[in-house]
């Protein structure tokens, strides 16, 4: 089932050999333990999202390896890795099919990692199960199984995406700034949902965020990326004692006289 997730000597550069070459992942070694909830922070272009995409399989590494639960997935294509991974994207519309109904979306998610055949897509007996799950969200979606998700708000779709990402228990849950595009109230709702789900199901999760408070308050481990490398890795009590100022100072040290991003100051 689950196990350690080990990334070794990972390298990835885009536009190699050209003037625009970007060393997005520049030598990362990371071991994610079973049950870790890691928040990932870093300046823009540090490689956070790229790292998540590399784990998901959106592209292949130039060199290095990724081992998940004892299996070497380095050369597995994205759809094959999907059996092990649940994803929630920054774009709240990206995780669901707008033209399909809620129950159709959930039926699709229920089959993640399993082979699909000619049986009925949305089975009658699954509907009760879907309703139960949706009720937990407290958004009234359990009464709207036959509504097209395209008619829902971004927050509702993101909540649905979270449900779908965990319906089949993932070995790794990837959350890529998944509240960034939502208004504060909805963002808070999604964040609470995140914490609940991860705790209840004891999931292993990586969460990229630009929000210092989020990064400190959630999870048991914090990792800071800079220029494609891990420059800070704090867990346990040390993490709990962290303050926003500490992180900001660390940022400043790293970037010397580079300007701090407004976004971080305003959090």
């Amino acid at each position: 089932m689950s196990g350690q997730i080990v990334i070794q000597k990972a390298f990835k550069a885009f536009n190699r050999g050209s003037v625009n070459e970007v060393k997005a992942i520049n030598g990362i070694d990371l071991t994610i333990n079973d049950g870790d909830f890691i928040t990932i922070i870093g300046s823009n272009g540090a490689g956070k999202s790229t790292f998540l995409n590399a784990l998901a399989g959106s592209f292949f590494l130039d060199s290095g390896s990724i081992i998940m639960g004892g299996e070497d997935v380095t050369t597995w294509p994205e759809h094959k890795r999907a059996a092990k991974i649940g994803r929630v994207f920054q774009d709240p519309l990206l995780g669901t099919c707008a033209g399909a109904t809620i129950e159709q979306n959930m039926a699709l998610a229920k089959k993640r990692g399993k082979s699909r055949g000619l049986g009925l897509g949305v089975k009658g007996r699954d509907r009760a199960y879907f309703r139960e799950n949706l009720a937990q969200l407290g958004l009234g979606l359990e009464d709207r199984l036959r509504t097209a998700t395209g008619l829902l708000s971004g927050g509702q779709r993101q909540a649905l995406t979270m449900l779908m990402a965990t319906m089949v228990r993932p070995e790794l849950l990837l959350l890529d700034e998944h509240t960034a595009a939502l208004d504060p109230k909805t963002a808070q709702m999604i964040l609470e949902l995140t914490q609940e789900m991860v705790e209840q199901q004891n999931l292993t999760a990586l969460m990229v965020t630009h929000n210092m408070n989020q990064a400190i308050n959630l999870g048991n481990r914090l990792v800071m990326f800079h220029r494609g490398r891990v420059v800070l890795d704090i867990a346990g009590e040390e993490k709990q004692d962290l303050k926003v100022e500490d992180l900001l100072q660390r940022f400043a040290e790293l970037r010397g006289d580079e300007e701090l991003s407004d976004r971080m100051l305003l959090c």
Partner: protein
Amino acid sequence: MTMYAFYGALEQGFAYGLMVLGVYLTFRILDFPDLTVDGSLPLGASVSAVAITAGYSPVVAILMASGAGFLAGMVTGILNTKLRILHLLASILTMIALYSVNLRIMGKPNVTLLGQDTIVDWFTQFSGLPQYLSTPVLFCAICAVAAVVLVWFLHTEIGLALLATGDNPQMITSQGVNTHTVIIFGVGLSNAMVACSGALVAQNQGAADVNMGVGSIVAGLASVIIGETVFGDKTIFRAILAALLGSVLYRVAIALALGLKLGAFSITPSDLNLITALLVVIALTAPTMKQKFFSKGSAA
């Protein structure tokens, strides 16, 4: 419009009905603009004509034609997914190549079916109806069967994955589906239907001709648009029914125009080309219009 002309329009509408279903499957469901149609329609016609002339039963000939169409669609799918050629371009390449393939299959540009036993002849004998009635009934029945199978298929697990692939490829990939396989299969299935339609059309008009596919995609899109506009596409079942009825309406419109003479003014078939072109423009811009209008309303 005379009764014969009306039944003629019905029979055309259903003969090309499978082609319209194929176009609907690629353009609307898979979001894959597929011009292979102009080549796979005559492909189906040539394979079935050669098979019938060689002595195979019309039904077997039609199945062979569908198989050939499936292969053609697979080629387009592979060009797009594995060789990363833009879908529009990939389909044009296949379409162009099929011209030569069709010439090879027939050995000449035109194979006549006059005097051969076609599925139309068989059904006319079987039903006892006069030919101008039996033909539309037969084609309608074939379309009905195809529509039912397609609607059922789109409700299965695989069918649902196909719908999702056209709607949101990133989402369905993260749910473990190989979109490449889906696209190759989907475009293959679409062109199998188109080729089947080509086989029916050839048996209806008495010959398979290498140039008979020119303009099919335009007629197909026009039919889809008319169907959507008139009948709506709220559910899968409705959408597929709309496509078939759109095909019939399109051909009825042509029949009406052919019979129209108002004093000095008359619509000639060449005016229909302009009207069809306008409809296609609407077909291609409607989704973007919808999106623009739509995404304003659903942001959090």
